[in-house]
């Protein structure tokens, strides 16, 4: 059985200054909302954050930015956030931009014990600077290394007490790879169930990757509500 927390503050208490943390989500979808809020409260500083995006000004990882808890951000798209821009321009925040597919694969590699792999993405672009370029079958590829983290904060729709997780729709995104790449993975789940309640065929993240869980209600903010305009 895994550690089951009932307090989000408790769940993030071991995250210290200078930790590297991975945070699941694409935009605001699939982010561990309450773990992020608790991390803001914890006031852990000088964090390196690995996440596809960096939230918006008043939600998600944007809250950690506002509170100046992040030293370095590794992500693929950070354009939804004014405070982000301000901190970068002022030299308060270091940014490492990684193509999204490369980021996803680097995190998968980290969790899978693969130290490095070659990918075509970024060849001939500013991303290639300082990176090894190598030909395979007449085509150029870049060497990219695996990424791991001290802590991974992920969100799932359902989790059982053995750590097995299932995600909902496109809220899956970066969460499964991050669950595997964190030395300690904390899963915020919408519904916590008993072992055996999930079909073993449908588990997205096997419990082996998850160290602790906590149940929490999600706000689930929508960034771009787009509705069908045609009559039914």
């Amino acid at each position, binding site marked *: 059985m895994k550690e089951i927390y009932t307090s989000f503050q408790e769940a993030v208490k071991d995250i210290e200054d200078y930790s590297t943390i991975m945070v699941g989500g*694409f*935009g*605001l*979808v*699939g982010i561990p909302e309450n773990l992020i809020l608790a991390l803001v409260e914890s006031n852990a500083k000088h964090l390196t954050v690995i996440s*596809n995006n960096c939230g918006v000004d008043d939600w998600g990882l944007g809250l950690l930015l506002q509170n100046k808890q992040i030293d370095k951000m590794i*992500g*693929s*798209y*950070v*354009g939804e956030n004014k405070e982000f*821009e301000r901190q*970068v*321009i002022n030299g308060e925040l270091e*940014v490492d*931009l990684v*193509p*999204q*597919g*490369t*980021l*996803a*694969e680097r*995190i*998968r590699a980290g969790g899978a014990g693969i130290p490095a792999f070659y*990918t*075509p*993405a*970024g*060849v*001939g*672009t*500013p*991303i290639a600077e300082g990176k090894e370029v190598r030909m395979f079958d007449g085509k150029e590829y870049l060497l990219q290394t695996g990424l791991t983290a001290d802590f991974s904060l992920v969100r799932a*729709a359902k989790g059982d007490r053995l750590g097995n997780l299932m*995600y*909902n*729709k*496109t*809220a*899956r*995104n*970066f*969460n*499964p*790879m991050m669950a595997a790449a964190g030395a300690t993975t904390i899963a915020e789940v919408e519904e916590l169930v008993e072992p055996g309640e999930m079909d073993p065929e449908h588990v*997205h993240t096997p419990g082996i990757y998850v160290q602790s869980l906590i149940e929490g209600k999600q706000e*689930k*903010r*929508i*960034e*771009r*509500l*787009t*509705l*069908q*305009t045609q009559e*039914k």
Partner: protein
Amino acid sequence: MAVHLDKATIREKIARRAEQEIENGFYVNLGIGMPTMVANYIQPDKQMVLQSENGLVGIGRSPYEEEVDPDLINAGKETVTASIGSSYCSSAESFAMIRGEHLDLAILGGMEVSETGDLANWMIPGKMIKGMGGAMDIVHGAKKIVIIMDHVNKHGEPKILKQCHLPLTGKGVVNRIITDRAVIDVEKDGLVLVEIAEGWTVEEIKESTEAELTISSKLLETSF
């Protein structure tokens, strides 16, 4: 005899022409912005699947209010539905699909394209860098890469160049360029003008294109 259309009409024109690139049975990734509009013009009898790099194979129409699920968005972060026979996957699987060239076609926006098929579409030096998102992977990740964009920039200067000035998204990755004025293919020996839009002449296209253009022997005039 250059034509002057309003911006919305031009965008629709380009999107409608781009739609013709989609063949029956295709798996397609549409970039954010104008490329996403292409979905609005897909012929109803065409069977095709739209892939979204955030982990959805089979984007459906926009949801009615009661159908909205905040956990279901496209790569442009807009709420969507899933089509019948769709599936969800992780970002790693989604880009495995892309990088492994399982997509038949990607239609993306562009700032500049060079005569060797280089593409620049993610950053302007001096302006705030927002990130490349999935673009650098997607340009290597479909059997055919089609760039849709205005033929010239807002100052009237060519966007199809001998060499890109902006930092690249990908080197030698573009197969076809569709603009408001023309359709141009990137071939081994350079750019080939294959179609001209209504109201434009070969001379006008050449003048508004910095790169050398070969005229296709099968050139279609007034094609769209």
